[in-house]
């Protein structure tokens, strides 16, 4: 089970590596602000209360832990 988890993970990465390159002039949709691979700027206060009120944090290109008396 654990071995298969590794294999699936590695294979999926390798499969994705064959993605067709998109030229800069073809990125009109991708460059839209709402397509950014990060949380909305207004989610900052929400993330702050999540790290206090919930045990989990991190892995969202934002706060990882530390720097506050939070969980």
């Amino acid at each position: 089970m654990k071995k298969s988890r590794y294999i699936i993970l590695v294979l999926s990465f390798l499969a994705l590596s064959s993605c067709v390159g998109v030229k800069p002039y073809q990125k009109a949709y991708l460059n839209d602000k709402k397509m950014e691979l990060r949380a909305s700027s207004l989610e900052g206060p929400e993330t702050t209360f999540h790290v206090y009120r919930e045990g989990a944090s991190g892995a969202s290109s934002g706060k990882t832990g530390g720097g506050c008396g939070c969980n």
Partner: protein
Amino acid sequence: MRHLFMIHILWFFAFANVYAQEKSSSYDVEEFKEIKTDIIIGYYQQDGGHSAVTGGKGTEELSATMPTVIVNVPLKNGQEISLNIGADAYTSASSDNININTVSGASRKDTRVHGVLSYDKELEEKEWILGVNGSFSNEWDYFSSGFGFSALKMLNQQNTQLGISSNIYLDNWALIYPFELRGQGPLVHTDKRNSYSLSLSWAQVLNRRMQMALFSDLVYQEGLLSTPYHRVYFSDLDNGNTPRVEQLPSHKFKLPIGVRFNYFTSDWLITRLYYRYYYDDFGIKGHTASVTLPLKVNEKNTFSPFYRFYSQSATTYFAPKGEHSILDKYYTSDYDLSGFTSHNIGLEYELKNIEGLLNYKIIKRKGRLESFKLRYTYYSRSDELKAHLFALGLSFRN
């Protein structure tokens, strides 16, 4: 845990290897450099009945106003400085209960000020972005200083980004104990908390309308990981009437792994999906899943309804009020560390105009208000904690 750690390392190096030989041919477009200023004001209000200050039962009423200003200043030769500074003013009924003999009825008020100063530099025609940062945070019982670095590598005509960053926070508690436990000498082993994090990210364009990113953090914390004014009551100590101060292990290892997937579904709809798995060695395992659906009514107006689901298992050291044994080495009745599920639902609205919603001039420099955002979130936790959050955002360009 070891397997999760291995996955973390494996996925990063697997892709680093795949793209190691690729040569980017990024376009050398000289962008128009503008100073960006974002003002974000959040207002948060919560209520619940499981305050850790009073041992797991008692009001959790709290409100906070959280203004933040973020300024990004582009400099010559691909350099940028950014400053993020804020002050959270809050009123907390539970903090007032650190001294339960207080009869004023007035809730405790305090302010947390925080800031991050960062510097980034683009190298080799934007193939690399390197950065350093320093941060601080100060409130009535907690002071933190931190520093870190980041590196971002662009590959495959900027269709792939690999990132690595690390931060260290050196924090100090002011040891405020519950009123009735003061004068007994030190009740915790240290007043320091240090956190070390290593973050990896991989972002990939999948096609003209889709892109995704993987994030993972390795976080190690040491020192005082409990809160010195949290009470814990025991079934076998004075009939549950005498508390002790919360005790938790002095080391903690956290490992969150998240994936984000964005799809420009149609000309008026974008689908944003996010999932995170979280593990720590206090026994908490968490799942977070969210969906946001930005609906573009026209070029200027976007409505983004969203929903977020979260669940976590309880830490090994948690028990409700009066259910711990005096024989336990570690104990907490903090419901933030209990097992629960939570739901966030809300709506974000954005009014945007690249030409400017409002144009102005300050000391010969023209500026404009580029966007105006409003966001409302309703938060509901299965232990009956409820919260409302309002946020307002203004983006200026000079």
